């Protein structure tokens, strides 16, 4: 949690300084599609708060959006489909598009195709990295101690 908060803070700084893609959003969506716990809500809230503060947007806007995105991602995760590359890309793309539409409607952000496509593509490596990170302490069935 702390590590992720630090990473999200760093990402928010990078995003507000020069990056044209929403990497905080990518990170939050990636984790929400992997792990289904309440930490996602806190991460979304704090990530949204930091991002809104650093990008000079109303402080309450991103927390609400991100929290609801986490809720939607949690529901998508519960669907009876396997999360491979394609489904991650599709669901991630869906959530990114939804955010882009909301941003366009509420804060007047331009709808641009390529940055959002890049976000959807970046979601894939982030998803697998996050999966690797979150499952680092999970013992696999085939892992056995050699004596």
């Amino acid at each position, binding site marked *: 949690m702390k590590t992720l908060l630090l990473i999200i803070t760093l990402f928010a*700084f*990078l995003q*507000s*300084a*020069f990056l044209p893609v929403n990497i905080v959003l990518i990170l939050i969506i990636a984790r929400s599609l992997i792990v289904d716990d*309440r930490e996602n*809500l*806190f991460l*979304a*809230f704090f990530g*949204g*708060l930091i991002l809104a*503060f*650093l990008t000079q947007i*109303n*402080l*309450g*806007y991103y*927390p*609400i959006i991100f*929290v*609801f995105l986490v*809720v939607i991602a*949690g*529901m998508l995760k*519960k*669907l009876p489909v396997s999360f491979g590359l394609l489904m991650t890309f599709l669901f991630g793309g869906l959530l990114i598009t939804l955010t882009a539409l909301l941003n366009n409607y509420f804060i007047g952000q331009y709808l641009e195709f390529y940055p959002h496509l890049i976000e959807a593509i970046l979601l894939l490596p982030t998803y697998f990295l996050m999966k690797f990170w979150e499952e680092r302490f999970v013992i696999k069935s085939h892992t056995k101690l050699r004596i």
Partner: protein
Amino acid sequence: MPQIWYIYNLMLKFLVYDFKTLAFLVLISIVILLLDFFKLLSIPKGLLQQVTIPIQYGLYKSSTGVSRQFGFVIQARQAAQENKAKSEQMAQILLENSNLRKKLTEAQSFLDQENALSDETFNLTPSRPIGFSRFLIIDKGANDGIRQDQAVVSKANFIGTVKEVDPKRSRVILGSDPDSRISAFSQSDQGKAKGILIGQFGSEMLLDKILHEEPIKVGDLVYSEGQELEIPRGLILGQVAEVIEKDNEIFKQAKVKAVFDIADLELVFIVGE
């Protein structure tokens, strides 16, 4: 219908599972949103910005520097590509320029030839020199109506006579060739001196068989006599460079040099009937 029911159950399950947290966070978010909307968070925001703005500025400057470095690499690559394209264009332009200059020179040669020997009097066939060793090779041959012994001129200067004719090219024996013999005369303000112009090895010619009483001096121009059927009278053969006069010999001689450099010729003309 069952799918909708399934999704509804899922939503309910999720919301019930974390409902308190979700409601709490949404509520806080709304409160923050309203507070910020009414500018009630300006002071804490201002204080925090004292810390964050320098960091953001530093990151921004660093990113600008890095992107400039990458931009330089991209620009260098673009410049290299443009340079290559421009070199190709330049080569093309130089080629076109060369062709235009060649055409201009040829046009100028036509004009000069027209002024020197009118094509109303002489039937002139233009031809380009394509090689030179002992003989001058030109790009017109039997297919173009060229025949052996025809005179080849440039302006009013005699170059040589056609020695061999192939279908598409011909060899011209120059006036300076040792096998060349042309009846000639030199013209000065004191009168004419007749003789036979014989080619020597090199670029020189020798005007031989000049009578002692006939006046000739260095600088006089030597012209064709016109006794050969194919060589018109009055063509310039060269210029006297030295007069060789010996008392114990019947005739005197004169060294004659060509008035043009064969390598400078862009276009020559074959004198027809």
